[in-house]
Every structure is written in structure tokens, then in C-alpha cells.
């Protein structure tokens, strides 16, 4: 393999490539799906191929193929050259990449219990057990569950001389239930994925979660609708994950900031003129980092897909905006450091600037203290719906479940809650971040964040804890 890839890189240079990299990835996925206690399917997915990224005459070209034959792979290189030459015909300036350390390395995700060695039936039994627990609640009419395991072997090689091999393992699980009654339908769900072995699923304690979700789904059927009101808002950590993802993580992607994702994903309110100015992103309680080195984060790896080492970067410090997520092409005018965020969904796709683990650093509160300290607010639990404008300023989120808090006490559950705000005002109102108690701050992750054309779905992680915001418009219609 090594000899063949190096020969292909030489071939690319012979055809005029000023720079080139080739990625080979081989991914094995094993999803297990349950519906109403029946395992709908156990599946195995094997996917492998090569992607070739080149600069020719100052223009970008990319081609990819699942073929393994050397002559066909030469054809892939030739096609990448053809694409690059077409790009170069209408270039404004030649593409330049900032220098990067040349690396030869081999790394793998630490795994205690290899999920691929486990008996599928035993794994399925965990989901059936969750179903049995959930249907003990009479209002629960539909249950679901899934287990997910992925192992990706990646090779990155460049004309500059880097050769990097990585093995990344992801393990995850989810359960959900639908309750019907009182002329209503309500859903509760849980889903979590980590770069780890099956020990991560064991630590989730799914049976306990199943009982909690079923009871909450039934409770929602008779809960009052969330009234329209401006009040304090406490996000549980699952909702904090999505809020950080959407309103902190996406706006700091420098390719988006510079407009390259405009037709689909949009741009960012963190415009280039705000860089280096300590723009007030949030209150002094808000500290955000990008850290691909965290254990078990979905955005944890060793090198990105242009061979840059995984690293930790300060994004927001005591509320002040400090850094974007960058690539070798974009970093030049924005700090000069490629901070290792270029990732592709697989061999078939171009690497893009993607979130690694974007974290709201832990604060010095506990969730109990935040609730006791809240005079009038809601605690919002688990994302149900979310929508943001194309600069990530105005947003509207809805949780599956909310609790009303008055004078430091939870007084009633609420359904059909929602909240809306503008991003900098929202984070400027943050006065409490939990994380003092064990387990309150956790790296959570979801495997489906879409970006790019063609769309690439990839999994970022987010270290988060419950957080309180103030003077937030909450309620169904607004």
C-alpha cells in the first residue's frame, strides 16, 4: 500500500501537481436497530477507497474512487489534475498552504472493550431490556433503540513527505419512546456517541435512562404548554451540547466565515473584521476551547485530514473572541496557525474545516445551586428542534421537556417549550456554568453534523455542563 500511494504521489507531481495528498480510508460500521422490542436489523457496512487532493497551476482539484487497482488509481490522479486545471483557468490567485510539520506516525483510539469482539445478541439484549422497561409505562406506544460501532483505518500521505496512519473507534447508543394519550403525542430520547470502546455504552446505564424517559414522556401528555414569557433559561447538558455546537461551533469555522459554504450552510456573524479585536462573544463566564486531544470526544483524533497534529485552541476567553478554526489554506491572515480541523467524512470527500471538540469550559456552579438560585425560569432538557439563520445570529430551539422553576424550586413540567435569542446577547446573559460536581461536565457527541456540498455528515464532540442564561424569550410561538 505504502509503495503504491507514494508512486501515485510521484505520478501527480509528474502531471504538474505543486502539492498533493492522498487519503485511503477503510471503515467498518455495525449499526443495530430496534423498534418496539424487535431488532429490525443488524448490519455491517464496509467502505473503503482513495481520495486525491491536488494543487495544479494554483487551482484545487479533487477526485476519489473506491477502486483499488493501480491503473484505476492513476486514473483518479489524472481526473484530479483535470479538475484542478479547470479550477485554475478562473483563479484569482494561486492557492497557498502554510507550512506544516512533516510527520511519520501511527496512532489508535484507546479502547478497553473492543465492540467488534462482542456478541451481537448480548448487545441486542440491552436494547430489548430498555424496551421492556419503557413499555411498563402504559402510555408508551412506540419504542426505539440503536447501537452504533465504527472503526476507521486512515492513511494520509502528502507530496511533502508526511505518512500518517490512524485507527479511530466510535461506539454509541440511543433509546427513545413515543407516548400517546390526552389527544397528544410526546417523545423522549437519549443518544450518545464517543471515541471509545463498548465501555462507553456500559457507562451510559441505558436501563435507568429508559425508565426515566418513559415516565417523562407520559408526564408530558398532561403537562401544561410552556407559557410565553421572558425569564431565565437553564440548559441541561444535552441541550447545552447542541447550543454550543450550533451557535459557538459553526460560527468559528473560518471557511464559513470567508463565504465558501454560503449557498448551503451560510456564513457567520463572526466576520473577519472582528478577528483580533477581543469581540465580546459572551459574558466573562463563557470560555470556549477547541480540543481534539480530549479523551472520548467524537472530535478527538491524532491528526486532521491535511496532516496537522490534533491540538487545543482557545476560542473564547472570558467572553472575548480569540480564534477561528483554521486550515492550511485559510490560516495565513488569521493567526498563521492551522489548528488541525480539516476533516472529511471519508475517502470520497474533500476535507473541510470541521468542529473538533468545541467545549464550554466548566464553571464553578453545580446544577442544584443554579436551580436554587433561579427565581423565575425553565430548565430545558434534550433538543427536539433547532433552527438558526444563515449567520448563526437569530436562533430558535425547542426542548423535548422543560420544567418551570419558581423561587429556586422545580414546580411543574412543561411541554412544547421553546426559546429564541440572538447569539452574542444570549451568551452575554450567561451568569452560571455548572461543572463543579462529578459528571456534570461531560464530552457529548452526535454523529450527524451536516456541512458542505456534497453534504458530508461528521461527528463533533462538545464538553459541556448545564448553563444558565437570563432574560430569554421562552414559549411556544416565539
Amino acid at each position, binding site marked *: 500500500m505504502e509503495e503504491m500511494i507514494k508512486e501515485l504521489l510521484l505520478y501527480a507531481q509528474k502531471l504538474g501537481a505543486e502539492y498533493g495528498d492522498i487519503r485511503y480510508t477503510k471503515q467498518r460500521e455495525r449499526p443495530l*436497530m430496534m423498534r418496539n422490542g*424487535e*431488532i*429490525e*436489523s*443488524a*448490519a*455491517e457496512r*464496509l*467502505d*473503503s477507497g482513495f481520495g486525491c487532493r491536488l494543487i495544479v497551476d494554483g487551482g*484545487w482539484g*479533487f*477526485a*476519489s*474512487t473506491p477502486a*483499488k487497482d493501480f491503473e484505476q488509481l492513476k486514473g*483518479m490522479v489524472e*481526473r*484530479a489534475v*483535470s*479538475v*484542478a*486545471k*479547470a*479550477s485554475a483557468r*478562473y*483563479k*484569482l490567485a494561486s492557492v497557498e498552504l502554510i507550512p506544516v510539520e512533516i510527520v511519520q506516525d501511527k496512532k489508535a483510539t484507546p479502547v478497553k472493550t473492543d465492540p467488534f469482539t462482542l*456478541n*451481537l*445478541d448480548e448487545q*441486542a439484549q440491552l436494547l430489548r431490556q430498555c424496551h421492556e422497561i419503557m413499555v411498563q409505562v402504559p402510555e408508551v406506544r*412506540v419504542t426505539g433503540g440503536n447501537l452504533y460501532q465504527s472503526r476507521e483505518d486512515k492513511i494520509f500521505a502528502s507530496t511533502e513527505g508526511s505518512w500518517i496512519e490512524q485507527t479511530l473507534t466510535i461506539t454509541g447508543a440511543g433509546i427513545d419512546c*413515543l407516548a400517546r394519550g390526552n389527544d397528544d*403525542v410526546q417523545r423522549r430520547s437519549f443518544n450518545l456517541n464517543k471515541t471509545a470502546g463498548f465501555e462507553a455504552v456500559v457507562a451510559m446505564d441505558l436501563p435507568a435512562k429508559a425508565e426515566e424517559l418513559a415516565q417523562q414522556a407520559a408526564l408530558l401528555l398532561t403537562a401544561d404548554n410552556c407559557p410565553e414569557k421572558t425569564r431565565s433559561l437553564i440548559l441541561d447538558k444535552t441541550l447545552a451540547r447542541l447550543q454550543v455546537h450550533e451557535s459557538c461551533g459553526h460560527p468559528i469555522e473560518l471557511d464559513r466565515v*470567508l*463565504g*465558501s459554504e*454560503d*449557498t448551503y450552510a*451560510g456564513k457567520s456573524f463572526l466576520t473577519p473584521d472582528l478577528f483580533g479585536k477581543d469581540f465580546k462573544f459572551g459574558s466573562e463566564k463563557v470560555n470556549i476551547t477547541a480540543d481534539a486531544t480530549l479523551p472520548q470526544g467524537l472530535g478527538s483524533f491524532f491528526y486532521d485530514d491535511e496532516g496537522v497534529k490534533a491540538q487545543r485552541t482557545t476560542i473564547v476567553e472570558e467572553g472575548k473572541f480569540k480564534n477561528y478554526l483554521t486550515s492550511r489554506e485559510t490560516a495565513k491572515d488569521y493567526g498563521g496557525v492551522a489548528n488541525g480541523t480539516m476533516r472529511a467524512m471519508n475517502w*470520497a470527500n*474533500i476535507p473541510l474545516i470541521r468542529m473538533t471538540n468545541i467545549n464550554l469550559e466548566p464553571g464553578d456552579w453545580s446544577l442544584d445551586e443554579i436551580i436554587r438560585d433561579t427565581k423565575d425560569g425553565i430548565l430545558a432538557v434534550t433538543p*427536539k*428542534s433547532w*433552527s438558526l*439563520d*444563515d449567520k448563526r*445570529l*437569530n436562533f*430558535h430551539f425547542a426542548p423535548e421537556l422543560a420544567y418551570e422553576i419558581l423561587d429556586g424550586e422545580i414546580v411543574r413540567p412543561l411541554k412544547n417549550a421553546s426559546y*429564541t435569542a*440572538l447569539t452574542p446577547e444570549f451568551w452575554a446573559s450567561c451568569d452560571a456554568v455548572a461543572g463543579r460536581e462529578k459528571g456534570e461536565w461531560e464530552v457529548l457527541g452526535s454523529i450527524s453534523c451536516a456541512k458542505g*456540498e*456534497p*453534504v458530508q455528515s461528521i461527528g463533533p464532540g462538545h464538553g459541556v455542563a448545564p448553563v444558565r442564561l437570563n432574560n430569554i424569550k421562552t414559549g*411556544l*410561538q*416565539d
Partner: protein
Amino acid sequence: MIQREQAEKILKTVLAASTADETQVILRSEDLSQTRFNNNWIHQHLFRETYSVEIKVVDQNRVGMATVNDLDEAALKKGVADALHNASFVKANPNLVPMPEAKPVLEIDGINQNTLNLSDMDRADLVASMIDVAKENSVDASGSFANELSVLAVANSKGVMTYHAGNNLRIRSIMANGLQTGYSEAMSTDVEAIDFVAVAKDALWKSKLKAEESITLDLGSYDTIFEPQAVADLLRFPGYIAFNGQSLADGRSFMAKAMGQKIFDEKVTVIDDAYEPRHVPMPFDAEGMPKEKVVIIDQGVAKGVVYDHASAFRAGKETTGHATAGRRGGASPGHLIIAPGNSSIEEMIKQTKRGVYVTRFHYTHCPEPMQIIATGTTRDGTFLIEDGEIVARLKNLRFTDSMLRVFANVDSLSQEQFLVKDWWFTFTMLVPAMKIKDFTFTGNTTF
């Protein structure tokens, strides 16, 4: 492109290797050429070749699946072995629906030679013609041009053996006049049917019109005119939430209690028709079952939903040929069409006393699926209409409204229909422009 003979050989290799009671195999391939541009230059440019073989076995009522992307015999046989191995671990499900028997499938020639022959340089030249429009008008062009050639072939052990190849293109254009933007798009199976410069100019006028200032609209309900791509986002919600048999059976669809009742305005007729030549035609679904034309809403009255084989079987009906591939499967209306009206966008504007013009939406979502209460923001050209004329550019708006109410409040539909996708790329739809009475805006943005 994988030709029919090669596809059938692959499908037969899988079927022959399987010892299961029932076996289904889906071969999909795609050659995608995509050019993305921004700030008047091509910044991303690719050719992507992908293929996969999805194998599903049912053995003693146990389902196992495997997907491989190697097409040689050994890899295919390993895929079958993996699927059988997976099935052996799964508890038997006595309620499984047997796989469908073969039905006659119509042959459709889905390959357009003009589109097939487009080179990397041709694509760049067409994009450059749009960038030239931008440069001539001192604005910045960005956008995306995708040329897709796809193959779907399906077989099962009960005699299904189908193959279809087709291609299409989609061009999307944003013109940025400083902070003011305009958008347009076009989609077709034939590159000769798309006027790229016209698409650029359609985006251009929206970036230039009333560009000196954008104003903030008082929140509330307004008569609102939607361009076709915005209509697609509105229809997407009932499309994926409510228009399929499984949602009906689960009680997750408003259609469950509405069949035969008038739920939308009588001007609204929604069908799913995979044979419509202006669409991207497709003769069969991911189970190899022939596509049926399904009337979903007939002059405002709820008439039907789409089914795959299993959801139809459980409902005591025949499949409508709308099965999707993948782990979750299920049925989906992939060829939605809203019947045309007798108006035009120009006429709609003329007939509006005070209202809003929406070019497109961004990141729509549905917080409440039973009433289909949806939310999202406008982008790339939102305007205020007064006394039959566009009088001002509006800062972008957030809407929150029930799609049941929206489609019950249709004022007019354009005679011309357009092939578009929703923002999420969920569906390709053939829809007219649409004017809605009292559409609810619940939030403002600052730009």
C-alpha cells in the same frame, strides 16, 4: 457508470451466494462532478465516484444486513456471509413482512447525452459565465454546480431484477452586493435546458433591488409570496412527517384523522409522480417495486399517502413503490408535485396590498410535528410589498407557523412550476410559486 450487464451480474452473484430464506440486494452508484465558487473564483472542485451494494437477508424470520463497496466476487460473497452472520444473532421476528414478488417495471431512458458529455472544463466555463455577470455588475458570485449520474439496481430472491440509470444537474447562485444578497437556482436533466446567465441575473436583481437600506418589519401576519424553493421548504415538513403509511400507522401524522376531509385550500393539489418528465424520472423504488402515481391532497382534501411494501402490507394495501434504501428504510415521497395555479409572481405582487416576498429559507425545523408547526429564517432577498410593488428590502425574518394553516390559507399559485430542492436536500419537487394569506413572522434578524 455501472452498465446494466455488470449490475445484473453483481446482483445475481449476491443472490446465488445467499442461503437465506429471502435475499434482497440494492446496487447504487454515483458519479458526481461538483464545482463550488465563492468571491468570483472556483474554490472547491471535485469528481467523486462511489458505489455500494446493500445486502439484506431474512433467514428464519431473522434480518441481517451488510453493505460493501467492493464489487469483486469475493467481497460480495463476504457481504452475504456478513449479512447471514448478523441475522443469526438477531431474535426471530414472527411479524416480519415477506419480501415482495416481482412486478412489471416501466423502462425509462434517464440518460441525457448533453449532460453526460459535460467536461470539467465545460463546467468551469459555465460557472465563469455566471461570474462574468457578477463582475460586470460589481457584485460577488458564489454558488454550486452539481452534475450527478446515478444508477440504482435492485433484485431479490422472489424474482425482482431492475436497473435504472439517470443524470441531472443543479446550479445554485448567490450574488452578494455588499451585505445584500440575492439567490436563484435551476435544475434539469438536460444542461441545454438551463440558462446559466439567466440564473445569475435572477440572483443579481434580488441583490441589487432596494439595496441601499434594509428595514426591520413589525412582527405579525402578512400576505406572503414564496419563490418555489421556499415553497419546497414548506412542503418538506408534511412530506417527511405525514405523507407516509408508517407515520399514519404510528399516529404521528395529521393525515391519520384527516383522510377524506378538506384540510388544505381547494387550490392545493399535491401528488407524487415519478414519471413526470420535468422531474428526475425514476421507474421503481429501493425494493424494485414500480412507482405508482399517488394523489396525496386533491383540491384540499386528504386522499392518500405513500407506502413501501411492509407498511402497505400491514395496512392491507399494495405498495405504491416508495421504499427507500438504508438501515431505517420506510417510505418517502421522492417526487412531490404541487399542481399549478393560474397566477404568476408578477401578478401576485400586483395583487398584494401589503405583504412580504420570500426568496428562500434557511435551516427550517419542526418543533411540533402533529400540527406541523415549523420555524426557519428567510435569506438572500426578503422584500416588503405595498400597493402592488416591492417598496423596501427587509432584514431577514423568522417564521413560526403551522403548515396545516399555511396550506389552508393559499391565495394563489403560479401557472409555471419549477424543479427545486428544499434547503435540506431532502426532496426534489416540482412546485409553483405560492402566495399565502396571513403568514406568521415571529422574529427579526439584524441583517
